[in-house]
């Protein structure tokens, strides 16, 4: 197989992609408004719970425990889903998963499916794979619909059209809806109620017609075989109950051992993602039930780089993620660079640690993602499962510049340091040498001080990256250590 597919191929390095976004004033405005609003609401919703810290710790521990015994829980899940009338399929990577789903849809004789918003199916590019097989997939989540109609890419986990404002959405609806089904009403304005109504009418006919539903899941309960989808719009409930066949594609890390474990996540997820005490719709289903809901249920368990990620002691914590997107909403880099710059369906801080693990660090974008952070730590602070994102970022930076042992497609391999860091590596070594030889440091400082009248406040060449927007500090007449020695007669302990 040709490496793990997460989103679309061949993206430029993060700084290149971010350059455009930073200078796009409409986008900056949209993102700033949206992230700041949800940020404040989340903080309020979380502050309401006096046991938030305990819930966060419990969520972390449940996930860590499950990941440690994932082999066992996966088999247990397979057993309980099968016992409840479902059929379990195992997919090692995106290609396998796409093949399985395409085959399953073909077997029904249908040529269209309705979809519940799902990160896993975006990760594997399912819609494109279905399209290639002549099957049309309709996104039914409002924001996903906007993205799909606009032939756009999602830029946020929870609000994929966060980069669009109301005016842009009205345009897209008016222009594109007729291509896909019921056209937008004449004279559509950009008021939220009218836009929602247009989407509702457009989607309704699809719900009622569709024979096959495709979903992901937020959780899978190992001991009962129950799958859980949490959502806000009710489109999920429609897709999960109306079609005759339901196919769910779910990452293997989405397991929780028991029904009771949901207690923790059903409190932390809505508050972290939409700042709601509880999300409007929580759908749970266990296999199939006669006379109620789909008559056939298929669960496709997706690996696609997850087992490799699990093999890494530091990086594996990324698999605790419950995709709440709180880390995106507080991230100052995401706010300015936008979701598309991350070159994956997983943007923001979680994307910066997940994509280079699921896909490896070979491509330009994946090697640059671990650096797409100032390490300010705001993401770690809000993460409801306490993923220390800065720690993983630094760990992955190390993987990029130093190489070292990793697991790829189940095999242990030793990575070489990435190309393009040679000058930096040399500089780091030189600095390390200077800093372990204080005498040399002192000589350098004195040289800088003595020549200070000739120092410019801006730099040419690569130094422009700093001085294009910031003046350099002026070098003082003498470094502190010389002053100290002069005034306190300190013995020069420099070796």
């Amino acid at each position, binding site marked *: 197989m040709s490496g793990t597919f997460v989103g679309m191929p061949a993206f430029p390095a993060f700084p290149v992609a971010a350059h455009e976004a930073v200078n796009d004033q409409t986008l900056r405005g949209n993102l700033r408004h949206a992230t700041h609003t949800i940020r404040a609401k989340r903080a309020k919703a979380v502050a309401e719970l006096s046991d938030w810290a305990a819930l966060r710790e419990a969520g972390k521990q449940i996930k860590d425990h499950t990941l440690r015994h994932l082999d066992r829980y996966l088999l247990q899940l397979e057993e309980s889903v099968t016992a409840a009338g479902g059929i379990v399929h195992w997919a090692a990577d995106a290609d396998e998963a796409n093949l399985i789903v395409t085959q399953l849809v073909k077997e029904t004789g249908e040529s269209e499916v309705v979809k519940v918003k799902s990160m896993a199916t975006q990760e594997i590019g399912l819609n494109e794979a279905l399209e290639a097989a002549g099957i049309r997939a309709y996104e039914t989540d409002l924001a996903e619909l906007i993205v799909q109609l606009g032939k756009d890419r999602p830029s946020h986990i929870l609000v994929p059209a966060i980069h669009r404002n109301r005016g842009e959405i009205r345009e897209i609806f008016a222009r594109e809806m007729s291509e896909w089904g019921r056209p937008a009403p004449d004279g559509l304005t950009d008021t939220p109620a009218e836009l929602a109504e247009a989407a509702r009418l457009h989607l309704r006919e699809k719900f009622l017609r569709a024979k096959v539903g495709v979903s992901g899941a937020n959780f899978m309960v190992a001991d009962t075989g129950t799958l859980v989808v949490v959502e806000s719009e009710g489109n999920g409930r429609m897709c999960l109950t109306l079609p005759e066949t339901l196919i769910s594609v779910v990452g293997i890390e989405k397991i929780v051992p028991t029904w009771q474990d949901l207690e923790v996540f059903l409190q932390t997820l809505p508050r972290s993602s939409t700042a709601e005490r509880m999300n409007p719709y929580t759908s749970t289903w266990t296999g199939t039930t006669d006379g109620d809901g789909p008559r056939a249920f298929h669960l496709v368990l997706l690996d696609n780089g997850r087992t490799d990620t699990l093999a890494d002691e530091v990086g594996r914590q990324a698999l605790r993620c419950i995709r709440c997107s709180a880390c995106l909403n507080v991230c100052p880099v995401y706010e300015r660079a936008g979701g598309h710059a991350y070159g994956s369906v997983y943007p923001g801080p979680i994307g910066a640690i997940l994509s280079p693990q699921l896909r490896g660090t070979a491509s330009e974008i994946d090697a640059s993602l671990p650096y797409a952070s100032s*390490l300010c730590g705001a993401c770690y602070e809000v993460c409801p499962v306490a993923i220390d994102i800065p720690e993983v970022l630094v760990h992955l930076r190390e993987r990029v510049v130093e190489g070292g042992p990793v697991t790829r497609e189940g095999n242990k391999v030793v990575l070489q340091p990435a190309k393009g860091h040679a000058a930096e590596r040399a500089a780091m070594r030189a600095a390390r040498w200077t800093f372990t030889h204080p005498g040399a440091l002192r000589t350098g400082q004195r040289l800088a001080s003595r020549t200070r009248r000739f120092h410019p406040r801006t730099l040419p060449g690569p130094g422009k990256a700093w001085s294009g927007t910031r003046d350099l500090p002026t070098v003082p007449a003498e470094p502190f250590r010389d002053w100290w020695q002069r005034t306190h007669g300190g013995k020069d302990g420099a070796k």
Partner: protein
Amino acid sequence: MRVALFLTCVNDTLYPDTGRAVVKLLTRLGVEVDFPMAQTCCGQAHYNTGYRHEAEPLARHFSDVFGEYEAIVTPSGSCGAMVRELYPRMGERARAEGRGDTLAATLAPVVPKTYELTEFLVDVLGVTDVGAYYPHKVTYHPTCHGLRSLGLGDRPLKLLQAVKGLELVELPGADECCGFGGTFAVKNADVSAAMGTDKVRNAESTGAEVLCAADNSCLMHIGGTMTRLHTEMRPVHIAEILAATEASAEVSTEEEPSA
């Protein structure tokens, strides 16, 4: 009490005034300050850029230089966090790589003894009024590593509130990163600069003359942005505010040596 000043390589080279201010302040509070001349750099830039193995000799050197002191005080939230939060992690990683406990054992003694300046003042010396006088309107930016890694909380604000003559105004969006982030500032210069500009605009909106922080690395970025944007404000390290007195307001006591 005899404490070692860990000034940090950036301050030593570029911001000696901050070092002089710490010495002046601590001496005034009855602390005997030493500056071990063999000190260099804690290794933070190496570590955070992905060169953990290059950072190890620097951490060992730090431990050699400072291991004997009762307390180590540093006027930098991020270098303080490097020692306190990341030295133990370096030890753990070495152990996980099968290199035994040596690194962890070497670094262990300096970890609990290292204090960021405002922590040392409030927690160890137990003072919030340090007898300073600074007749200016000031706004405070809590730098990320001080805020989130060390958990400095309201210590810096309490210290500033007790300064005579100082009018403290709240900074909107205070806990948002200024965009420095070490090598992030050059590797992702566009985003970094956008964050810096927003920080400066927020600071300007307070009408303060001075933007104060407890870390000169962030102030270097913010200050460089301020002059480029032709802002009237000045960046000032908190140590320099806390060291200022009525006497020093009249005549500058710091001699400027001839270059």
